[in-house]
C-alpha cells in the first residue's frame, strides 16, 4: 500500500476558458475549489486569482501541481519563439515537404506553414548512413557559420537535426557542442534527444516544436514560481506532461514538447484515478465541452499512451502522450439542414463568441446547447439571469425557421432531432476510437465530464451498448483533479526492429534494466515524496512484412521469447480474428515507463458530506417538463450536493450542480457511491 500523501496539496489547471483549482488537506480530507476565467496573455494571473478565490494560504501549502496550455496555445496560434535549424546538406526542406499529404481526402485545397520558415533552415555538410556509419564527416566550420547566421537573424532557439541521428548521434552531439560555444542561451534541441526513432519528418517536427516553445515555457514557469515565492510559497511546483505524469518545474522546459498535449491528459488521469477508486478499471473518458469532445481509453486503470499524435494537420509530436482523440461536436456545434434535406450537426461551431443562442451574446444559429434547453434538459429559468437575455420563444422560433420548417417538424421535434443526430455521430466516433485500439466499447464504462458530457453520456452509452456511466463528483474541475492525483512518470522507448527469433533476449533484458535505472534516477532527482515505484513494460510487434504495430503489455522486465510470441499472437487474434502462425513475428520497440506513484488521496469530501440531505424529497428542488424519446415527462430536478449519500433513483431525473447537469433518462437508474460519484446503469435497447 502506498503511504498517505501528506499535507496540503493544490492542483491547478488552466483550460481554454477557465482556470480550475482544487486544494486538498490530506490530514483532514477537507477540500476547497475555485473556478476563475483563464488569462491568456499570462496564465499565471489566472492561477493566482484561483488561489485567491479559494483563499489558499500559500505559506501552508506543501505542493502545487500545475497543468498549463501555454505551449499548446503557442503551437496552435503559431506564437512561437523564433527558431532556427541546422540540418544535413540536401535536406533543409524536410519540415516543409512533410509526408506528401493533403488536409482532406477530397478537395484539392489546403494550406500548410512549416513550423520553422525556410530561410531559417540552414544546411551543413555531414552524413551518416542508416547503420550510423559516417559517410561525410561533420563540417564544423559550416556549423559555426550557420549558427552565426541564425543568431544574426534573431533566433532565440536552435534545432540540430541530422539524418539517421537515431542510429548514431555523434554529429548532433558535436554540433551541439560547437553551437554552445556561440549561442547565448541553453535553448538548443538535438533531434535524437526527444525521439530516437527513424522518420526524419516526425523527429524533426518534434524537435522543432520543442525548441520553439522552450523559451516561452521557461519564462512562464519562472514568472509563476517567482510570484508564488513572493506570496510565501516554499514548496515544489510540479508541471503536468502530456504523458499524464508530472515533472518538476526546473526540468520541464528541457522537454517542453511533452507539455503540448497536457491539458486533455490531466482529465484522463483523473478519470483513471476516480474509476479505480470506484472499482471500474476499464473506462472510456468522454469530455464534452463548448467546442469539442475529447475521448480516451483507459484499460485496467492505465490510460492508453501513444507516441504518434498529430496536434493538427501535418504537425506530429512523437513523444509518449495520453492518447486523447478529438471527435467533434461540442455544446456550441451548429445544426443545419443540408441541400439533401438531411440534418447535420457540426463541424461548424458557434464557439464561445457569439456562442449558442441561449448565451444571449448575439448567437442566432441553432446549437446543441440550445436544443438541450428547448427540451428542458438545461434549465430554461437560467436564461433570465443572462444579460441581454434571450427568451425560450425566440430560440423556438429560430429552430422552427432554420430546421423545423425544412424537416417537416415542430421546433421541439427539431431540437430532439439535433440531439439524436449529434449523439449518433459522437457514438460512431467513439466507437472508431475504441475499435482502432482493438477494443469493444461494451467492455467499458463511460466516464462523463466536461460541461456537457453528463447530459449526453447515457444516450451515447445506450447507442454503444455500454452498460454504465460514471459521473464524478465534480465533472467541471476534472482536469485540476487530474493534476492533484498525477504521478511522476518517465517513458523510454528503444527500437529493436528484428525478427523475434533473432532478438538477443539478454540484450533486451539489459535495455529494460537500463530504462528502469534511468527512470528511477530521474524520479529520485525531484523533490517529491513518492510512495512507491511502479513500472510498466510493453513491446510493439508486427508480423514480418506488416507496417502497423500492435502493442503488447508484458508483466515482467525479463520476458522470454516464447512468452512474447504467444502474447503477440493472442493479441493479434483478439484484434483481427486472424491466425497467422505461418508468418514470423518482428519485435519493433521495447517500452518502459517508470512511475513514481504519489500517496493515495481521499477525495470523498469533494462533495461536502455535511451538506447532504437525509432523503431524496429534501434534495429535490423542483420539477420541470423534460422531453425524452417518448415525449415530455414532468421530471424531478435534484441539487447534487443535497443528494443523500448512497442514494438510488430511477429516471427520469435531472441532477443539477454548479458546473454541469446530469440527465437520467427514463428506465435508467442512478446510484450514489460512497465517495460521491454517480453510477448510471443504462437500460439497453433490445
Amino acid at each position, binding site marked *: 500500500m502506498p503511504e498517505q500523501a501528506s499535507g496540503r496539496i493544490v492542483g491547478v489547471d488552466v483550460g481554454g476558458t477557465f482556470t480550475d483549482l482544487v486544494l486538498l488537506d490530506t490530514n483532514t480530507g477537507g477540500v476547497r475549489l475555485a473556478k476563475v476565467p483563464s488569462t491568456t496573455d499570462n496564465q499565471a494571473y489566472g492561477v493566482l486569482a484561483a488561489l485567491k478565490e479559494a483563499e489558499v494560504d500559500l505559506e501552508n501549502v506543501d505542493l502545487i501541481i500545475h497543468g498549463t496550455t501555454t505551449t499548446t496555445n503557442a503551437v496552435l496560434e503559431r506564437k512561437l519563439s523564433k527558431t532556427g535549424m541546422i540540418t544535413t546538406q540536401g535536406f533543409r526542406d524536410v519540415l516543409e515537404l512533410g509526408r506528401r*499529404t493533403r488536409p482532406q481526402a477530397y478537395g484539392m485545397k489546403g494550406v500548410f506553414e512549416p513550423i520553422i520558415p525556410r530561410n531559417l533552415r540552414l544546411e551543413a555538410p555531414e552524413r551518416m548512413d542508416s547503420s550510423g556509419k559516417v559517410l561525410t564527416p561533420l563540417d564544423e566550420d559550416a556549423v559555426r557559420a550557420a549558427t552565426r547566421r541564425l543568431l544574426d537573424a534573431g533566433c532565440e532557439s536552435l534545432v540540430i537535426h541530422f539524418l539517421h541521428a537515431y542510429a548514431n548521434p555523434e554529429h548532433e552531439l558535436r554540433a551541439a557542442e560547437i553551437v554552445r560555444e556561440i549561442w547565448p542561451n541553453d535553448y538548443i534541441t538535438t533531434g535524437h534527444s526527444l525521439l530516437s526513432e527513424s*522518420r526524419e519528418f516526425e523527429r524533426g517536427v518534434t524537435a522543432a516544436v520543442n525548441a520553439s516553445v522552450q523559451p516561452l515555457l521557461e519564462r512562464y514557469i519562472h514568472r509563476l514560481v517567482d510570484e508564488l515565492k513572493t506570496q510565501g510559497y516554499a514548496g515544489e511546483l510540479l508541471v503536468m506532461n502530456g504523458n499524464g505524469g508530472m515533472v518538476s518545474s526546473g526540468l520541464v522546459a528541457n522537454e517542453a514538447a511533452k507539455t503540448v498535449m497536457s491539458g486533455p491528459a490531466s482529465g484522463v488521469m483523473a478519470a483513471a484515478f476516480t474509476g479505480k477508486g470506484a472499482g471500474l478499471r476499464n473506462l472510456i473518458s468522454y469530455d464534452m465541452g463548448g467546442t469539442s469532445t475529447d475521448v480516451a481509453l483507459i484499460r485496467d486503470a492505465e490510460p492508453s499512451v501513444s507516441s504518434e499524435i498529430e496536434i493538427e494537420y501535418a504537425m506530429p509530436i512523437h513523444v509518449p502522450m495520453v492518447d486523447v482523440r478529438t471527435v467533434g461536436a461540442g455544446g456550441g456545434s451548429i445544426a443545419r439542414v443540408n441541400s439533401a434535406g438531411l440534418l447535420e450537426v457540426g463541424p461548424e461551431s458557434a464557439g464561445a463568441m457569439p456562442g449558442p443562442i441561449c448565451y444571449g451574446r448575439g448567437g442566432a444559429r441553432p446549437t446543441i446547447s440550445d436544443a438541450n434547453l428547448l427540451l428542458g434538459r438545461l434549465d430554461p429559468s437560467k436564461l433570465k439571469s443572462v444579460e441581454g437575455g434571450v427568451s425560450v420563444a425566440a430560440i423556438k422560433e429560430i429552430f422552427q425557421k432554420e430546421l423545423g420548417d425544412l424537416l417537416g417538424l415542430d421546433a421541439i421535434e427539431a431540437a430532439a432531432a439535433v440531439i439524436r443526430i449529434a449523439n*449518433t455521430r459522437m457514438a460512431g466516433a467513439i*466507437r472508431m476510437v475504441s*475499435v482502432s485500439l482493438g477494443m469493444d466499447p461494451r467492455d467499458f464504462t463511460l466516464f462523463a465530464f466536461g460541461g456537457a458530457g453528463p447530459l449526453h453520456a447515457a444516450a451515447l452509452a445506450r447507442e454503444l451498448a455500454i452498460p454504465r456511466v460514471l459521473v464524478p463528483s465534480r465533472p467541471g474541475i476534472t482536469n485540476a483533479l487530474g493534476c492533484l492525483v498525477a504521478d511522476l512518470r518517465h517513458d523510454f522507448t528503444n527500437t529493436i526492429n528484428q525478427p523475434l527469433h533473432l532478438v538477443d533476449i539478454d540484450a533486451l533484458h539489459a535495455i529494460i534494466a537500463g530504462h528502469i535505472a534511468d527512470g528511477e534516477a530521474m524520479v529520485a532527482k525531484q523533490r517529491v515524496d513518492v510512495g512507491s515505484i511502479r513500472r510498466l513494460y510493453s513491446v510493439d510487434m508486427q508480423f514480418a*512484412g506488416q507496417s*502497423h504495430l500492435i502493442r503488447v503489455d508484458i508483466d515482467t522486465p525479463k520476458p522470454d521469447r516464447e512468452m512474447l510470441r504467444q502474447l503477440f499472437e493472442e493479441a493479434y487474434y483478439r484484434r483481427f480474428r486472424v491466425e497467422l502462425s505461418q508468418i514470423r513475428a518482428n519485435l519493433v520497440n521495447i517500452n518502459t515507463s517508470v512511475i513514481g506513484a504519489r500517496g493515495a488521496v481521499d477525495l470523498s469530501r469533494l462533495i461536502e458530506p455535511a451538506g447532504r440531505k437525509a432523503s431524496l424529497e429534501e434534495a429535490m428542488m423542483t420539477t420541470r417538463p423534460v422531453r425524452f424519446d417518448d415525449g415530455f415527462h414532468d421530471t424531478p430536478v435534484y441539487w447534487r450536493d443535497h443528494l443523500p449519500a448512497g442514494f438510488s433513483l430511477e429516471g427520469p431525473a435531472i441532477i443539477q450542480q454548479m458546473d454541469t447537469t446530469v440527465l437520467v433518462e427514463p428506465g435508467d437508474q442512478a446510484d450514489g457511491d460512497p465517495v460521491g460519484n454517480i453510477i448510471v446503469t443504462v437500460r439497453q435497447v433490445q
Partner: protein
Amino acid sequence: MTLDPITLGVIQAGLQQVCDEMDLSFSRAAFSPVIAEANDRSDGIYSAKDGSLIAQGAGGLPVFVGAMQYSTRTLIEMIREGRALPPEPEDIYIVNDPYLGGTHLMDVRFAKPYYRDGEIFCWLSNTGHWPDTGGSVPGGFSASATAVEQEGLRLPPVKLFKKGRMDEEIYAIICSNIRVADQRIGDVKAQAAALAKGAERLDALLDRYGDDTVREAIGELRHRANTQMRACIAMIPDGVYESTAWVDSDGVVDEPLAINLAITKTGDELDFDFSKSSPPCIGPMNSVLATTLSSVYLAMRHIFPEVPISAGAFEPLKVRRPEGTFLDAHYPRPVSGCAAEVSQRIAEAVFAALVTALPDRVTAAPAGTSGNFALGGHDPDRDRDFVMYQLSGGGYGGNADHDGLANGCSTIGISKAPPVEIMEQVFPVLYHRYALREGSGGAGKHRGGFGLEYQLELRRGDARASFVMDHGRYGPQGALGGADGARNEVTVWQNGRAHTPPHLSKEQDIAMGAGDHVLVRTPGGGGYGDPFERDPEAVLKDVLLERYTCDQARDLFGVAISGDPGEIDAAETTRLRQSR
C-alpha cells in the same frame, strides 16, 4: 415517404460506420504496405439488384470511388447469365480483370453476398492493391507492355472462398504466378476479415432498425444524394465547357495522347463527352471504362466534397461511353497506367473545363502524376533481390482562396510518402537531396504549389530503373490567366553521363551500377489568376524564402526586388506591371 428524416440520418451514419470499420480493419491487418500505409484500398456496400453503390468507406482511395459499383454490377450480370457460379452464404469471389469493371491488375477485388433470411440483401466488396500480380515487371507498372498478358495474372470472378472455406487450389494457382507470394496469405485473410467485419456490423444495424426500414432508407438516401448533386450542378451556368489535357506518351510510341472533353450543362445535369480523344494506344496508358467513369466521379467529388459518395450522386453525371478512344480500352490493350496516371489526367480535364464556371471551387491543375520510380536489383551485401518504389508528390494548383500546396499526394490517392530514412534502411540507396523544387509553382495571383526534387545514388550492386510518370511534355495547366506549373524531369547518370528518357517521363529497365544517380524533379501546380495581380508582399516573401529568384519575381510576377535583404521597389514594380 414514411421514413422520418431523423431515422434516415441515423441509418445513413450507420451505413457509413459499417464501411469505415471495414476500411480500418483491412488497413490494420494488411501486409501490403500499399494497403496498410498508403490506404490503397476501399470497402463498400452495393445493391443486390444491380451492384449500385450504397455506401463507401470515407478513407477509401478516391480512384475506387465509382469503379467498384461497376465491377459488382458486372459480377451480378455474369452470375445471372451463368458465366460465374451462383452465390452461396459465406462465399467470396475474387476478381481483378480490368475489362470487367476494374482498374489495373494489381487492384484485387473481393465480393461477398450478404444474406438476410436466405436472400441476398446486398453485396459487400473491397479492393486492395497487391504489391505484385505477376507479369513482366515486379509490381506490375510496366512502361512498355503492349498486351495485358505482359502485365500480370488476370482473374475472372471465381470463388476464392466457398461457404467460408478458402479454395486452396485457386490460391495455389495465384501464388505460383505472383512475386513475394509468401506474404499474400496475410493480405487475403485481412481482406476477407474486413468483409466479415462489415457483415457483423450490418447485422447489428439491420437487427436494430429492421430490414424493411433500412431498405427504404437506402432508396431514399440514393434519391437524396441525386437531388443534392443536382443542386450543386445547378450552380453552374448552362453552356458547353471544353478542355484538353495531355498524356506525354503511351510509353511505346512517343506521341502525346489527347483527352478532349466537352461538358454540356443543361438544367441540373452534366454531360461528359470524351469522344474526340485519342484512339486506343499501343502502350499501357489505356483506360478501361470503369476507371474513366471513376475518374470523372472523383474529380466531381473534389469539386463538391459535401455530397456523400453513393450511386445517387453519380446519376446526374452522364458520361457517354467514349468508344474508339484510349479511355475505353478493350482486351487485350495494356492498362497498367490507367489508375495511376490517365485517371489523374481525366480529372485535370474536368477541372480545366469547369474552373471558369466554378472559379471559387475548382483549382488550377495539380501535379497530377503518381511519379512512379521503381528500382529493382540485387543487393550484394545482403545477398538478396529487392524492388523499391518511390512514388512522389507534386505541387497543387492555385485556387481562389490560397496558393497551391507543396508536395501534395496524387489527385487519386491519399497516401503518405515513406521517409528517406526508412528507404535507406531497406534498400541500397543513398539520397543526396530531398528538397522543395524551387521556382516550379506556376505563376499566378495565387501561385501553384512547389514540386519535389530528389537525387539518389545506387550504393552497391546492379539494378534497373523504370519510370512511369507524366507531365514531362507539358506542365500542369494554369487557370484564369495563371501560368502552367513546371514539367516533370528525369535524369539518370550512368558512369557520370546524363541520360534523359526519350519519352521524358516513361522508360523501362535503365541499367544502373553502383555510384550511378537518379534525379527526379516533379511538377509544380498550375497558377491561378493573373500573376501581375499577385500581392507584391507575397512575391517578396517567396523570394526571401528562396522559392523564386529576384529575376523570376520580375519576369513572372512583375515585382522588382532589390537590396539585401530584399525589399520591394514600388516605383519599378508599378512600371513593370503597367508596361506589360
